[in-house]
């Protein structure tokens, strides 16, 4: 089942995001990081994370950097602190878009997460991520898509 979580307001930790990324990203999965072309620091960081160091065309406004998930990359991404938080520029993670395999997609800096849940374990993890948001009193929209 395709599930989406859209976080409507600021969060103080990226615990929900980390829980989902840690579960749905596996070693050997394809990793695509998309940044806006003006995000020089983020592009540099993405090139470091993406194992293949391949920078592809993207679109007129975006750069697409593709690689493969390794345990090292996964750990580094999980260890990153929550990104800058401001009302106009809400970011949970520093990359605008991250696509992992076919089961995890983080968009709009982690405020929108799209998941392909294919097992009861997947569903349990999603439920736990929502419980984290509930415990932080953060409003979100959750459902199938």
């Amino acid at each position, binding site marked *: 089942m395709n599930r*989406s979580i859209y976080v409507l307001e600021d969060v103080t930790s990226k615990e929900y995001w980390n829980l989902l990324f840690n579960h749905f990203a596996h070693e050997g999965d394809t990793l695509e990081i998309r940044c806006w072309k003006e995000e020089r620091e983020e592009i540099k960081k993405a090139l470091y994370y993406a194992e293949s160091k391949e920078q592809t065309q993207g679109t007129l406004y975006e750069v697409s950097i593709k690689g493969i998930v390794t345990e090292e990359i996964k750990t580094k991404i999980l260890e990153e602190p929550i990104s800058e938080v401001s009302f106009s520029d809400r970011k949970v993670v520093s990359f605008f878009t991250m696509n992992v395999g076919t089961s995890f997609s983080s968009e709009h800096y982690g405020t929108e997460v799209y998941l392909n849940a294919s097992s009861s374990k997947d569903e349990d993890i999603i439920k736990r991520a929502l419980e984290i948001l509930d415990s932080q009193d953060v409003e979100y929209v959750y459902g199938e898509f």
Partner: protein
Amino acid sequence: MKKNAKKVICIVLAVILVFSLSTPSYAASKSAGLAFGPVKIGNLEVKVTNPHVGQVPGMGRVNHINLHISKTSNGKDIANFHIVKQKSGKRDCLYVYESVSKKVVIDKCYDDWKTGIKEVVKLASAVVDKALENANAIATVAIWAAIVVVIIDLLVPMDPIPVIPFSTDGELVEI
């Protein structure tokens, strides 16, 4: 004066008004990936993203833009329109998904883009009207006029996604 010339002058004046009024007091700091805004309208903030590839429920991972409305008091999103450009034969079509209400609000073909974009902006301004406090009415009208111009400018160069014929004369959905 001809009707078209009047329209052009109105749009130009609207854009000038938005940027002259908004730069110091209405606009927040510019963020990456934004084609317009964030611009404050009373207690709300409006922004338009540049085209990017991402999930749009019902369409998959496609090139689209977002028209985004949030509250300035706490940053909470109140509407987020994902706008996809489509083409059906020679007709211009739009698919618009609003992710706070989780509804496809437009899935329709038009004789020209401008009519379609005006419908999107009409929906967005209705959301704003419901939640608005203490806004400058003239500036608000000017901001919406500028947003129509910005979205048209963004959509025109985008590659449209073909739609299945006879499936796109949907109705507007109130959110």
